[in-house]
């Protein structure tokens, strides 16, 4: 069997790139981010926070643009911009006159526009804009890897420690406090962890493609299973597989890795959705 694959060149197509140090580094980052984004992404999808997560990622763009000129570490600037987004969102929706999704859409657009103006007319960021928006998985530094590892570790610990709280609160928000679970504290920790994961994912896939790892794999796994444990495992596995696929595609076809992962993730989701709808029609 191996001989056949060798003849086709498939094995070498898969393994040769991974012998190169910068690809090994990218693979390590992908696997760490798959754990963080797959686990957190499951809760993001279950709690219907996908649009919020996407917007929070995009909202970091102006922060990333000013980080260099202002001499700030990129994760700190991104976190600052993300917290600003969350604060404005809370303020806009406090009175109930503006719905959360409308306010999120408005802030997302404003952040993108502000970042673009800052990048093009104020700081003349040039080609760096592509990197900020779509990431650079093939050029991650030690700090980026360390952040990815921290996010993965935090996601594993939090899912083990807070999974029950998040499950009960998401299932029945009104009834959860009466079960004795600390629903409000659980929600605050979920949002804090989401912020950490978004910041960790940014260097790899950029401000615009955070959902590629954080939402798409979990949303795809959601179509495949109705139980929590397989959902968590499936989201991590899909994020890792789609990340690896995107890396290889990027290497061989000279594509940017972030968009390559996004295309694969979107394609897998479409195929699974199609198969699920056909299965439902048959049954």
């Amino acid at each position, binding site marked *: 069997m191996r001989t056949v694959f060798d003849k086709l060149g498939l094995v070498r197509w898969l393994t040769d790139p991974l012998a190169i140090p910068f690809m090994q580094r990218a693979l390590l980052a992908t696997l760490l981010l798959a754990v963080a984004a797959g686990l957190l992404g499951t809760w993001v999808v*279950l709690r219907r926070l996908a649009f919020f997560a996407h917007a929070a990622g995009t909202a970091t763009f102006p922060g990333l643009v000013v980080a260099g000129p202002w001499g700030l570490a990129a994760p700190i600037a991104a976190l600052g911009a993300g917290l600003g987004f969350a604060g404005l969102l809370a303020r806009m929706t406090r009175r109930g006159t503006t719905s959360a999704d409308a306010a999120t859409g408005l802030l997302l657009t404003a952040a993108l526009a502000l970042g673009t103006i800052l990048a093009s007319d104020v700081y003349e960021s040039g080609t760096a804009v592509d990197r900020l928006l779509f990431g650079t998985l093939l050029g991650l530094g030690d700090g980026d890897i360390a952040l990815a590892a921290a996010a993965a570790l935090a996601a594993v610990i939090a899912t083990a*420690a807070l999974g029950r709280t998040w499950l009960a609160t*998401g*299932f*029945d928000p009104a*009834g959860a406090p009466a079960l004795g679970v600390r629903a409000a504290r659980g929600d605050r920790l979920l949002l804090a962890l989401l912020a950490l994961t978004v910041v960790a994912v940014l260097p790899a896939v950029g401000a615009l493609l955070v959902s590629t790892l954080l939402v798409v794999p979990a949303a795809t796994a959601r179509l495949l299973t*109705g139980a929590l444990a397989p959902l968590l495992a499936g989201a991590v596995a899909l994020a890792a597989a789609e990340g690896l696929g995107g890396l290889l595609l990027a290497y061989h076809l000279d594509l940017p890795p972030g968009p390559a992962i996004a295309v694969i993730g979107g394609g897998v989701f479409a195929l699974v959705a199609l198969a699920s709808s056909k299965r439902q029609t048959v049954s």
Partner: protein
Amino acid sequence: MSAASAAAASGVQVQDLSASYGSAAIALREVTFTATGGQAVAVLGPNGGGKTTLFRALLGELEATTGSVTVHGTIAYVPQTERSRLDFPVSALDVALMGAYGRTPWFRRITAGDRAAARAALERVDLADRAGTRFGALSGGQRQRVLIARALVQDAHVLLLDEPFAGVDRTSEEAIMGILAGLRAEGRVLLIATHDVEQARGWDRVLCLAGAQIAYGPPAETLTNAVLEGTYGEEIVMLDCGHRAVAIQHHSH
């Protein structure tokens, strides 16, 4: 917990309770009643009449503005099944097990004893064979019974049931009535928020709320035309059927 100990332990005392949401106007005023072990109390009132406010005050989620609330025994809330996320990846057993979450520290796994309690609770509500079924795939009545099972796993002495018969078919309604009768017989206290005046006549006590307490007592004495009109105002039409008034509501939920 045994039936005898539940009877000895359970009870609710509410004295001159007023409650509000933050700095908003008072949502519920002047509520005074006592329910002892084995009593089922129908909590009647229109939407916005204060049923949810009373429940939240009893659960300790809402500070009393004035007055006091005393609950003897563990208290549990059984929400309307429609308020739950039906698309969530949880089975009937998973939902019943949520009743053990409050007593399980974050660093511990759910114990085998709690798993056995959850299975026993599902058996009690006659859903042992549906333990592995996804909650959202169950009928409305079955979902309501699973939520009651969750309260049983909490080992609740006092159960607050939020319109347990809403959206439930006749067969399930009878099944739920049977389960509630069993819980009463064990000495647990049941507070049942409902819009169904006729059904409320079958419980031990009735508490009528319309922003304030209108009346409390045995249904036969309490549910007079004047009390019902005071509770529902123009939401209700009274028909004289000889021995008692029959209430027909313009709308119900």
